[in-house]
């Protein structure tokens, strides 16, 4: 069943088809993946499914082959990947450089993402990880004449390669210790001993490798470069899919492999992950305010929200994870939709930019941007509202209050920044937003895709029982003994979990408040725009912010230096704390 997904995707590699046929075929394939994943989701609802490639079932506790270990969360990821890629295919109709080869790459990327979500083997995870990277590199540079996207691709490629090497070193360490590559077997072997330095180093390296993909501070510089410049469809993939999958991998690896030995140090791991998440959320939210360039602003918005998602994982409990699942889908879809709506910068030197509206699709497009901003802020009944509610529910005591405040502030700031794209243009852009003639008010494919993504994100919030389902899936996700038992053919009964999710009114109020605050921020606060000549005094951002922004203008070498710094910090904190 599962490998069919990969297989179907590959059929299209024969690329001697007309453009239209390629397009249809790609769309049909990704839709088929969604369908298959949905079927699978229904099928695995009761528990884990294990599939051994080549029929190599484990013997005496040794996993000979590679397994796909399918659980609801993983399938959800696969399903989401399929949906997003379908939307990307629709949006790509607008990008002329997106030829047959690019569509083929897109499908390979989809296959890799699906494999990444479902695999139960650490090295296999790495292979799919690399496959996703390589496809993305090639896709960013699809427009070979755009200097900025070439640079983005180089930046992405070098930094993510280093991240991948870190993961690989971690794998080598763990293999030498456990003598296995299957996640379940590794977890079982590691659980027999308390954590020592080898385990800590391996954990730090693997986590950093995936954090690079997720664009968490201080590993986020590549996203600023790459997402700003990449063609819209590829940027959608990066902010919607890749960062989500990076975070997913952290959760997966922690709960299947490391949770045994590291459980004794739960608070430490929590504080490292949440600390990185908080830093990311705040930095992204602050910096998105001072970006004049629309796509660059969105890049920071999405960095900020990745930080929130990392906090959800970092809570290291089922409620947080359930929140992450919903949040990743709803928020990822919204961010991707925004990237498809906002117009990419063009290389117009000397001419004052902003003479055309900053978004696609005329009025409908503008309305969609507003909706997306509301979604980002967590306005009920959006999916993000539900997710943020769960996220706040996952913390306790003072942490809960602080977290609620943080989420409120970050949501308001980012939503404000997005809304400002509209209002700022209208109020201070100089020229009136003369909508482009072709697409005014008409539903084009890209617009439809964006609407679908945003609509889907809102629908997620009203699906009855989604919270409870997600919670039970998350509980199962985190149950390492059951996971290992199922993989190795010694099934154990899962502890039944039935907990109703009752969020109360606070998250709803927070969501409304954040939306309102965002709106107000966009409307009245003249925080923007060095470009707005009529307000030269209020225009310059405060000095610390400018410093911070300066940091993001460095080259690839800067990125690598920060990568070293971040890895050293995370590694040292973990090592000192666990000693």
């Amino acid at each position: 069943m599962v490998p069919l997904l990969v297989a179907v995707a590959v059929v299209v590699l024969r690329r001697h088809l007309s453009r239209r046929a390629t397009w249809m075929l790609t769309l049909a394939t990704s839709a088929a993946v969604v369908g298959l994943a949905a079927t699978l989701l229904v099928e695995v609802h009761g528990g884990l499914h294990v599939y051994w490639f080549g029929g190599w079932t484990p013997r005496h506790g040794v996993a000979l082959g590679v397994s796909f270990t399918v659980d609801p969360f993983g399938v959800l990821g696969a399903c989401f990947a399929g949906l997003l890629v379908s939307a990307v295919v629709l949006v790509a109709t607008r990008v002329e450089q997106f030829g047959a080869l690019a569509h083929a790459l897109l499908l390979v990327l989809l296959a890799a993402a699906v494999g990444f979500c479902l695999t139960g083997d650490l090295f296999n995870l790495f292979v799919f990880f690399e496959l996703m990277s390589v496809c993305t590199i090639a896709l960013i540079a699809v427009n070979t004449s755009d200097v900025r996207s070439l640079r983005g691709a180089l930046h992405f490629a070098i930094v993510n390669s280093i991240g991948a090497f870190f993961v690989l070193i971690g794998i080598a360490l763990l293999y030498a210790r456990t003598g296995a590559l299957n996640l379940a077997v590794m977890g079982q072997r590691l659980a027999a001993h308390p954590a020592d330095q080898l385990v800590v180093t391996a954990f730090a390296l693997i986590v950093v490798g995936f954090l690079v993909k997720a664009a968490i501070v201080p590993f986020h510089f590549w996203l600023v470069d790459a997402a700003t410049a990449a063609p819209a469809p590829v940027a959608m993939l990066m902010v919607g899919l890749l960062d989500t999958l990076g975070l997913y991998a952290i959760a997966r690896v922690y709960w299947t492999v490391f949770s045994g030995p590291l459980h004794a140090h739960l608070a430490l791991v929590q504080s490292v992950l949440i600390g990185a998440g908080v830093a990311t959320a705040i930095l992204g939210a602050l910096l998105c305010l001072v970006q004049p360039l629309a796509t660059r602003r969105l890049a920071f918005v999405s960095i900020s929200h990745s930080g929130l998602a990392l906090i959800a994982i970092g809570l290291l409990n089922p409620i947080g994870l359930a929140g992450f699942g919903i949040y990743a889908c709803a928020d990822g879809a919204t961010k991707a939709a925004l990237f498809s709506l906002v117009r990419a910068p063009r290389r117009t030197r000397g001419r004052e930019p902003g003479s055309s509206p900053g978004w696609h699709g005329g009025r409908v497009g503008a309305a969609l941007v507003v909706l997306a901003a509301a979604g980002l802020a967590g306005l009920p009944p959006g999916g993000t509202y539900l997710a943020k509610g769960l996220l706040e529910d996952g913390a306790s005591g003072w942490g809960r209050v602080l977290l609620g405040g943080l989420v409120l502030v970050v949501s308001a700031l980012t939503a404000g920044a997005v809304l400002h794209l509209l209002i700022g243009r209208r109020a201070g852009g100089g020229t009136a937003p003369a909508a482009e003639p072709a697409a005014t008010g008409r539903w084009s494919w890209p617009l439809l895709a964006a609407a679908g993504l945003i609509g889907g994100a809102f629908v997620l919030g009203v699906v009855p029982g989604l919270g409870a389902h997600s919670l039970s899936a998350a509980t199962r996700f985190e149950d390492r003994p059951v996971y290992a038992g199922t993989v190795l053919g010694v099934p154990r009964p899962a502890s039944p979990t039935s907990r109703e999710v009752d969020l109360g009114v606070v998250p709803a109020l927070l969501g409304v408040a954040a939306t309102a605050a965002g709106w107000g921020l966009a409307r009245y606060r003249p925080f923007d725009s060095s470009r707005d000549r009529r307000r030269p005094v209020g225009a310059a951002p405060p000095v610390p912010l400018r410093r911070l922004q300066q940091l993001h203008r460095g080259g690839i070498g800067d990125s690598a230096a920060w990568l070293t710094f971040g890895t050293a910090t995370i590694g040292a904190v973990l090592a000192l704390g666990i000693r």
Partner: protein
Amino acid sequence: MSILAYGVAAWLLLVGLWGIVNSRNLVHQVICVSVVQASTYVLLVAVGYRSGAVAPVFSGVRVGTIAVDPVVQALCLTDVVVGTTVTALLLALVVQWHKRTGSLDPDQVDDLDEQG
């Protein structure tokens, strides 16, 4: 001996990173990436070594002879392929970038970011 094998892996990692951080030339930078990658090869192969053991190829060798670990070698082989292709892709990007800008400086910043 232990220190030497694992130490060389760690050393290559750090030296390669240093090269990437300080590079003034994109081709140089890309080659440094492949040095970092070499550290993973060395580590993988070193992890599977058993002194006195034969290679995991049993043609002409009695089955049951102690051999070194084949799994890490397989992983390493995969890694070599991946590394090569990524390097090729990077070099192609560099060539294209140079064609468009006439520069090989990894730190060249586009001022478009500022003006919007």
